[in-house]
């Protein structure tokens, strides 16, 4: 967050965001591991009184005093442990606090990313220097601690959502998820439905199970599902081999550098007596083989930073962490405790080739600090979970992507930046990666939009972010996927990468009401009991005379799952004017083999709030099962572009 506001163009939004109370009246509830309230990111200087509508509380614990913790920035802090303790036994008070205090770091990182105050002149171990700030610096934060060292449980999460809505949160941010289950069985989807119905926007992380297909969490259409991309910043640390070759890696190591002359170099798999010694698992390296050497470890199974500790404990001088096919070219920087760098699969294979061919291999690592302006950026992170949605393939997920790789934000004082027990360091900030990091970026942006447009529904706010997202670099092709090195697809990035300056003035939105979602549930053939679990409406029944279709949900993106036989699918959409009067014209970029017909092709809006319908018909000939194709539909009045991705799959 010393770079993402600029990367997102937030420095260009100042004129668009009203400085009225509407922006600072938004309270974002962050359900996570709690908060370390002493961090400067929670400084409330310059903020007005706590919104009068706020009904939350600052719950106390032995190590969490409300008078010292909560203020006009951190307006609420609660913890929910009854479900956890019922399942796992009493909280181990020697390891974590039965209070909102964050002993993990994750919750402090996410909440400060959402709405942390600006903290100038910060860095992480000398890296990523700048002013750290949340995406909505004027919004307020309320933390709901629902995750403990042993996990996060549905009964606690639902209780926290229950309370957060009662307290008056306008946005909920959840950087957590479970497997895939039907919406009425998913505690988060259940809570989010009622939240949406009460005007609360809910954003959730998509998950880190990529790059495999259909690996998403939190896919309910009333949730904003957020994938992760990189930003234009990197932390290069190059591997220099004695054969003259050098390979680019990344690292956040900060400490005593390696000697200037190359050191002996060994593959971990050749310094062990165990079959998985190449992974540098605890206790697997032979000290007499690795002492004083740089060790190449393969990525996988155990934590990346733990591998460094294993090398260090065995007497190694440094580590090169090599990706395998599972991670490809994705590089995640870590604050290793010994000189270390991470390299991609291609570099890793080349380095191994040198290791196996040279009888006396030597190497060193050159740490290059922080580099900005990296291109191309963003690229989709390999770990970011991918669509299509396994629950409803006709709803395109994830919805969009945001920065989630190497993100600097505030950190707990309980553990070091690696989270390892062996890490004695304590830092105000940390750099970590995940869709957990991209989700709070979007939550902060949702708060910005809600503050700028307090009368917009959750559906309209989400639509504004989605239809203004970009899917291509300026004049330079589609956003890339680091997992493949090729152009990513809407199954990877949804509508694309968020563009908040444009989202503040989207022109048109695809609005969605609770009634629309109920029709959607009817289209899924949900029973009245299942609908009641989600909606709390015990007397709601679907109209047997009405032909409900999932394709009628007024979603800002299109996913069409064709049967293998040639077929035609028709979607109906409604656009609402949220800008000046004008005429919008449709343009379609359709993939080969799919005919796309939009009717009408022009829509004229003469008043604010005016709604216009259109239909789009997709026709295709038979295609092999498993085929996919993509396109884009745009409505433009020359000033605005209201874009929707089209994703086609043949089952």
């Amino acid at each position, binding site marked *: 967050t010393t770079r993402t506001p600029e990367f997102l163009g937030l420095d260009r939004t100042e004129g668009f965001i009203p400085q009225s109370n509407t922006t600072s009246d938004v309270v974002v509830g962050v359900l996570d591991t709690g908060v370390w309230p002493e961090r400067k990111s929670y400084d409330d200087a310059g903020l007005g009184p706590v919104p009068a509508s706020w009904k939350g509380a600052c719950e106390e614990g032995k190590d969490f005093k409300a008078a010292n913790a909560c203020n006009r920035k951190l307006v609420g802090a609660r913890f929910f442990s009854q479900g956890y303790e019922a399942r796992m036994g009493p909280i181990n008070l020697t390891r974590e606090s039965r209070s909102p205090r964050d002993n993990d770091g994750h919750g402090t990182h996410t909440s400060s990313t959402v709405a942390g105050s600006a903290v100038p002149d910060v860095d992480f171990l000398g890296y990523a220097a700048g002013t750290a700030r949340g995406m909505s610096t004027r919004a307020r934060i309320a933390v709901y601690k629902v*995750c403990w060292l042993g996990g996060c449980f549905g009964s606690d999460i639902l209780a926290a959502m229950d309370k957060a809505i009662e307290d008056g949160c306008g946005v909920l941010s959840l950087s957590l998820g479970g497997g895939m289950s039907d919406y009425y069985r998913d505690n988060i989807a259940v809570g989010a439905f009622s939240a949406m119905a009460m005007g609360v926007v809910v954003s959730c992380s998509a998950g880190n199970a990529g790059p495999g297909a259909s690996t998403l969490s939190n896919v309910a259409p009333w949730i904003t599902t957020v994938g992760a991309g990189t930003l234009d910043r990197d932390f290069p640390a190059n591997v220099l081999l004695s054969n003259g070759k050098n390979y680019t890696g990344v690292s956040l190591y900060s400490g005593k550098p390696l000697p200037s002359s190359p050191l002996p170099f060994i593959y971990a798999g050749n310094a062990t007596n165990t079959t998985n010694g190449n992974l540098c698992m605890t206790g697997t390296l032979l000290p007499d083989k690795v002492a004083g050497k740089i060790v190449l470890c393969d990525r996988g199974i155990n934590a990346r930073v733990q591998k460094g500790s294993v090398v260090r404990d065995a007497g190694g001088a440094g580590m090169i962490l090599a990706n395998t096919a599972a991670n490809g070219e994705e590089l995640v920087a870590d604050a290793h405790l010994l000189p270390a760098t991470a390299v991609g699969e291609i570099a890793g294979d080349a380095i191994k080739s040198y290791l196996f061919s040279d009888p006396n291999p030597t190497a060193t690592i050159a740490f290059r600090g922080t580099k900005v302006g990296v291109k191309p950026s963003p690229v989709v992170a390999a770990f970011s979970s991918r669509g299509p949605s396994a629950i409803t393939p006709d709803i395109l997920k994830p919805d969009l992507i945001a920065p989630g790789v190497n993100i600097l934000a505030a950190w707990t004082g309980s553990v070091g930046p690696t989270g390892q027990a062996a890490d004695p360091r304590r830092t105000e900030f940390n750099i970590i990666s995940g869709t957990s990091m991209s989700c709070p970026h979007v939550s902060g942006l949702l708060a910005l939009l809600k503050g700028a447009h307090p009368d917009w529904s959750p559906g309209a706010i989400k639509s504004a972010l989605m239809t203004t997202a970009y899917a291509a670099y300026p004049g330079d092709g589609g956003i890339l996927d680091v997992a493949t090195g090729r152009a990513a697809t809407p199954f990877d990035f949804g509508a694309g990468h968020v563009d908040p300056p444009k989202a503040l003035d989207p022109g048109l939105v695809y609005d969605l009401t609770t009634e629309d979602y109920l029709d959607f549930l009817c289209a899924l053939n949900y029973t009245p009991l299942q609908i009641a679990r989600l909606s709390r409406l015990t007397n709601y029944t679907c109209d047997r005379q009405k032909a409900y279709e999932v394709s009628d949900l007024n979603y800002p993106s299109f996913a069409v799952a064709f049967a293998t036989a040639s077929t035609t699918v028709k979607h109906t959409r409604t656009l609402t004017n949220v800008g000046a009067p004008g005429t919008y014209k449709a343009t379609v970029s359709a993939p080969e083999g799919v005919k796309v017909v939009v009717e009408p092709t022009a829509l004229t809006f003469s008043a604010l709030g005016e709604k216009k319908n259109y239909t789009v018909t997709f026709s295709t000939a038979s295609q092999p099962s498993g085929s996919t194709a993509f396109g884009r539909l745009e409505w433009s009045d020359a000033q605005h572009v209201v874009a929707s991705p089209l994703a086609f799959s043949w089952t």
Partner: protein
Amino acid sequence: AAAKKRTYIVHMAKSQMPPAFAEHRHWYDASLRSVSDTAEILYAYDTVAHGFSARLTPAEARAMERRPGVLGVMAEARYELH
């Protein structure tokens, strides 16, 4: 039996509370008591859901599903940080 217990979220039809009860919490308590002598309510939900959570055996959960006013009984899911 305690070892077999799981946490369930019991969704209730708030509008179907019998008139004998003055508060929903009392109704939830009575419903729970009717299927288990020992179970206690972990949370009562009132904003994003109507109902409660409690530790139940599978047999108790099935019995709960048949109680009047019960919309559904779901085993809670476990989630992880992303």
